[in-house]
């Protein structure tokens, strides 16, 4: 056992750190740091910078544009990117669909879609959840009936993140209503421009516009857009969800947020002293830092174990990462709320728009409460924390 990073790993970390320092566009870095909404162009321009450097899809196999990095390097890369802070490449393509296509797609699909995912030529969104199928995803009802060389899709998806920007949606659809619920599901790629696709925005509690309902009304989808085999979609979905779960821990994001809170607490005054001199507040920060360090070590253990796993199946221990990671991210938003004090309250209209009026209160405070509200989602999506605990109880504890 040697728990330190090797000199090579440290050199690697320094290299990626320098790259992020030099390459993240200032507007993107600032929005990330201030918890402001990123525009579509922000995601696209940044991912293209990454892609140009060959780092948009580091975890893909080398033949499809991966870097061949070790799991530790992958981890360091992600950690540095989050601390930059920079957004990750679009998850729906790079982390969700990409690996599914690589594992289960056909040559033509891989050759067509993978490069476009890497360079974000197509914006993908995830069409899994339905009004009646959330945690019980396998009960989904959106149907796809074969009609010649097309599937005809009818139904509704919901909570679809950033579908308003999407060119394509990958969907779980029911192709065999007779079979046991997990066995009649297929994985279908649908062009959002198809006739019969309607997107309706859902406003979140913080006023944000990031989720949508997506309706399918006799949408014709060429059979060549089926991934893998018909009625085997559930296997691919489980594979995808395992990958999604791992990505939610976001240790580097919490590090960056805590660092920022500590910086702001040096400026934000409580009477005659800066907030950072309030021992009780510092203790609460320290409390979160302890949990975060433990999570980081746990994550590194999962990463190390990955090296020796042959089956490529997600480690059920990754559910621990999802649970703790989401709780810590949420706890950090509570620290920010405390720091903002009464100035967490103002909600000026359109806080994101550039205006000449000076901010109300500290210039960072307007996003604090909305972020606290919004980040309640982290313990809900990607398999709710209750579902993660069910997974652990079953897969690890045998209960």
């Amino acid at each position, binding site marked *: 056992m040697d728990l330190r990073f090797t000199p090579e790993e440290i050199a690697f970390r320094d290299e990626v750190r320098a790259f992020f320092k030099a390459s993240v566009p200032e507007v993107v870095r600032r929005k990330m740091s201030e918890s402001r909404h990123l525009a579509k162009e922000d995601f696209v321009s940044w991912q293209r910078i990454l892609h140009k450097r060959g780092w948009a899809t580091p975890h893909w196999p080398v033949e499809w544009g991966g870097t061949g990095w070790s799991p530790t390097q992958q981890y360091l890369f992600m950690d540095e990117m989050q601390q930059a802070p920079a957004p990750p490449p679009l998850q729906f393509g790079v982390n969700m669909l990409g690996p599914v296509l690589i594992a289960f797609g056909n040559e033509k699909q891989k050759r067509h879609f993978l490069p476009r995912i890497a360079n974000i030529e197509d914006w993908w969104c995830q069409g899994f*959840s339905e009004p*009646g*199928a*959330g*945690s*019980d995803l396998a*009960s989904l009802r959106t149907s796809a009936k074969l009609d010649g060389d097309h599937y005809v899709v009818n139904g509704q998806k*919901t*909570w679809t993140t950033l579908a308003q920007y999407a060119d394509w949606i990958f969907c779980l659809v029911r192709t065999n209503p007779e079979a046991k619920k997990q066995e009649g599901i297929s994985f279908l790629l649908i062009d959002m421009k198809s006739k019969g696709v309607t997107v309706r925005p*859902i*406003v*979140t*509690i913080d*006023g944000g516009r990031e*989720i949508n309902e997506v309706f399918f009304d006799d949408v014709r989808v060429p059979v060549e857009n089926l991934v893998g085999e018909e009625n085997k979609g559930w296997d691919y979905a489980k594979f995808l969800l395992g990958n999604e779960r791992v990505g939610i821990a976001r240790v580097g994001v919490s590090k960056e947020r805590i660092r920022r809170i500590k910086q702001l607490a040096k400026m934000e*005054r*409580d*009477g*005659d002293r800066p907030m950072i001199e309030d021992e*009780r*507040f510092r203790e*609460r920060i320290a409390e979160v830092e302890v949990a975060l360090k433990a999570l980081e070590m746990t994550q590194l253990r999962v990463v190390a174990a990955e090296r020796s796993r042959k089956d490529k199946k997600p480690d059920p221990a990754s559910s621990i990462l999802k649970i703790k990671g989401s709780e810590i991210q949420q706890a950090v938003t509570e620290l920010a*709320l*405390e720091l903002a*004090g*009464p*100035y*967490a*309250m*103002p*909600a*000026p*209209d359109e806080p994101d728009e550039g205006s000449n009026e000076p901010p*109300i*209160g500290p210039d960072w405070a307007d996003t604090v*409460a*909305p972020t*606290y*509200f*919004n980040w*309640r*989602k982290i*313990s*809900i*999506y990607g398999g*709710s*924390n*209750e579902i993660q*605990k069910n997974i652990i109880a079953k897969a690890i504890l045998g209960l």
Partner: protein
Amino acid sequence: MDFDLSEEQQLLKDSLGRLLADHGSFAQRQKHRNEPDGWSRALWALYAELGLLGLPFEEKHGGLGAGPVETMVAMEAFGRALALEPYLATVILAGGLIRHAGSEAQKSALVPKIADGSLILAFAHGERQARYELADIATTAKKDGAGWVLDGEKGVVLHGDSADTLIVSARLSGQRRDRDGIGLFLVDGNASGVTRRPYPTVDGLRAAEITFSSVKLGADAVLGTPGKALPAIERVVDEAIAALAAESVGVMAVMHEATVEYLKTRRQFGTTIGSFQVLQHRAVDMLVALEQARSMAMFATMMVSEENAAERSKAMAAAKVQIGRSGKFVGQQAIQLHGGIGMTNEYSVGHYFKRMTMIDTLFGPAEHHLARLAKTDGLVES
């Protein structure tokens, strides 16, 4: 000890409950947010009709002479309805200052107008550097002949945008955090030199940043003894905390009821999600938190008229800790147990969660009051 409401109190509770069911439903509330003031003048008139606006004032000044229990009943109902109206600002805060610091003449002049709904008030007190320290006042009032001149900035003044008259705290003498040397002034919201920057708050209510620059005030603008206003301010903030505790109970109760209802109706895995024991226990924990908060809201109500300021303020700190803790748990779990639906603006629970979060922030969150309480000898006498 008697935890039951009297007949009149029960009547108040029932009639206000009915009024809000008819005129203050969640859907109506969301419409009221878009009215010019961000709240409903029509509803305000109905409150006046019911006597709510004169509730805590003495009868001889035109009030109803009711006590803290009536205020608790009203605030809990406002919490349940997520009311937008400036009851806290006008009746509890500014009204409280008039009750405790006003002269007979001021009370006789102002209370009838508060009670009939024609006068909206706000308490312009907080300043950015002060955070939650009540004595921290940089705004100054300087003697000017028989009157005064007011200069300074007040932040997050609840309903300061729609108030006709502001009650402004200002420093007459001493250092910024001195307990001595603070005065209260009645200031016309539209007086020359008063600049208001209104905005909505994240819980859907309204507030304003207010600047006073060389605002000239007459001698009659003074409320209470100049320089000796802090005790009245502390008392009124204690009353506001007791009121918020009651409001938060209404807010939490609705979130809890909605969650239990959802657990009974939402189906996943071929059954209602309420059949999963982990969610049953969570709903039980929410109930425990709610009941602990309700008990502390009652404790606050009992203690709010305590003349011993130290005892009173300890009780309010304790209540604020409990409602902060309970409210955070109940709110977060209400969202969590609703899944995606809980995250939507269209559904009511998120709005209750936001109000609950801001109730915790108002006059200092749980952590602030815990620190305050820890500096005293505590609640269990040694």
